């Protein structure tokens, strides 16, 4: 029987992890909402952002957090280009399938180029505060994990405000809900979709920076992330940002707690188990996700 302290510690670790999952899954949900696109390359860009943070830290000693000044706008632009230049060229009838392949191809490209540029060696940023921790009622919280979690919360909050409180947010939500109707209302849905994609990729930039603070990175790491993230967006209900966030927190927590009795490897299977159960019994997802019914 695990001790109370270990349980408490695991709950905290699970929530911290869940926060990061929530941020990353929100980006994936956004793409799906806007264009019905399952964006396989999302986590490849995540790793790319982490590599940029690592490279800047290694070469000019820049703190990873500052690298976001560059990577966030850069990724926004890349997302815009990806949507305009590639995805919008696909035939609408086969968009869902072909977009998966196209983003899969982009993921391979990013992975291959990262491997080419930085080799397959595992990298990690050595921060002065990397091993520091805080005490919280007997549990320890690593400073870097707390920063990563803070980043996720701030980014998610900003995204929420943007969606709820700005004209662009309204247009974006209208486009997600009903594209044709939005167009009739005079919304330039093409442009909104492009910006939405940029926004999604910008979350990958923030997530990648958060990731680089505390874990090792290597080019093929993105496969390790895309699986859980896809499970999260299905469990949360395809297209629902709050659903994805709730699913992310719950699954992150479950993974962390299951590690105690089952070990690291088996604990990861919870994501896929949840995915299969959701699709078999409640394909629209457990937390909203009106869109999932049809896709």
């Amino acid at each position, binding site marked *: 029987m695990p001790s109370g302290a270990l349980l408490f510690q695991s709950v905290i670790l699970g929530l911290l992890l869940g926060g990061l999952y929530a941020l990353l899954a929100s980006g994936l949900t956004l793409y799906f909402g806007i264009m019905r696109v399952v964006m396989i390359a999302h986590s490849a860009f995540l790793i790319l952002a982490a590599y940029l943070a690592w490279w800047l830290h290694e070469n000019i000693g820049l703190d990873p957090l500052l690298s976001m000044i560059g990577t966030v706008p850069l990724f926004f632009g890349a997302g815009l280009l990806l949507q305009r230049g590639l995805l919008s060229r696909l035939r609408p009838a086969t968009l869902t399938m072909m977009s998966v392949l196209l983003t899969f191809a982009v993921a391979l490209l990013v992975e291959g180029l990262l491997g080419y540029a930085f080799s397959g060696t*595992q990298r990690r940023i050595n921060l002065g505060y990397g*091993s520091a921790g805080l005490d919280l009622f007997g549990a320890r919280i690593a400073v870097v994990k707390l920063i990563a979690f803070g980043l996720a919360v701030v980014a998610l909050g900003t995204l929420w405000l943007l969606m709820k409180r700005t004209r662009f947010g309204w247009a974006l939500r209208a486009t997600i809900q009903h594209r044709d109707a939005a167009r009739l209302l005079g919304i330039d849905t093409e442009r909104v979709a492009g910006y939405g994609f940029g926004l999604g990729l910008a979350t990958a930039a923030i997530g990648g920076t958060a990731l680089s603070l505390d874990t090792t990175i290597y080019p093929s790491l993105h496969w390790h992330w895309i699986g859980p993230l896809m499970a999260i967006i299905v469990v949360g209900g395809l297209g629902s940002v709050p659903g994805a966030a709730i699913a992310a927190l719950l699954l992150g927590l479950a993974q962390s707690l299951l590690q105690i009795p089952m070990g*690291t490897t088996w604990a990861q299977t919870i994501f896929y188990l949840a995915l299969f159960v959701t699709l078999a019994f409640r394909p629209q997802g457990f937390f909203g996700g009106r869109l999932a019914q049809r896709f």
Partner: protein
Amino acid sequence: MSITSFRARFSTGLLATSLMISLGACSGDSDDSAGDGPITIGISLPLTGDFAEPGKGVQQGYEAWAKIVNDNGGLLGRQVELTILDDQSNADRVVADYEQLIGQDQVDLVVGPFSTRLVVPAARVAEEYDMLFVEPAGAAKEVFEQGFENLFYAAPAVANDHYNHLAEKILALPADQRPKTAAYAAMDDPFAQGTAYGLKEKLEAGGIETVVDEVYPPNTTDFSGIAAKIADAKADVLVGGSQYQDGVNLIVALQQLGYQPKLAAFSTAPTNPEFAAAIGDKTEGVLSPTGYSQDAPYPSNSEFVEKFTAQFGVPPEEDQANGYTTGQVVAAAVTAAGCAEQGECQQKLIDWLRANTVETVVGPLSWDETGKPKGAHMIQQWIGGDIKIVLPEDVKEADFLFPKPAW
């Protein structure tokens, strides 16, 4: 059936035929190389993928060996030429590579790739073409359980015996000092697990209780869960069956949780030149087994260190030494047998190695009938900002430090 679809199908056939034939045709130019040309040695190494880092280390070892041999006039008066292919850390590829090296490139000798996962399939190819197979990296005991008759592991000890000296030392401590509990965390890899479980077996037999026993997949990047378990169990001894980065990550995660073991041993990771910086210079007292030391007094070692450093600008580490040792073993066999080509010569080489001892940079090596070397590894420890040999007693550079200072 419309004309269009017929055309399409017809052109498939045409394409298929021409490609099949071109695949066959573009590969016929292998020449018979036995005789007085250079001795070609085929190697497949993981230069990309999961094992790229150690793979490149072994490559340097092989290259250094070829250069030193050639500078000294070659083998049997013939120059040595290496053909190195990349197997992308992939078992399918490693097999295809050795097929290509033996069947198409007609190399005279083959030597091994890196990592147990790749050594077993590779050794089988070599075995089935009756080639001698000396390998630098398949240290897990599984390699020697396959019934290979052509395989020789060119290092002092197999993974499970790496910690033998340390186990003896721990169990010999006075009862009031001897640790009571131990935690093991090992990568799901035959080599890494082999090292940790070799020690686990011996400590358990000596009455040291196992309180945590974790195995993690090679791609694990988040060690906080495992670290939480170990910290919660407050184990006296920490054993990591690690390669490099996973060991560093585990240590950092344990530091974050404020856990302090009395003894910490990791395979491979602490001998890496970047280890100290990676864990924030809190290395004091960390232990690691090693099969190679730059300061080891074996006859060929000083030449190796000197010339390797001249060639690559940095002194050799264990991976490099393993590659070099493999070369030395093959060279000894070739010199003794007086031949190096495919065919009957290979059996002469195998028979000679089975019966003899070879002097190498990691000491004298000899093998049992499965190709398992009959030695043990030295134990190194970080002391005063440098890693030094502490066990066994007769070659030690510093005294064994116990308990380990806080990190």
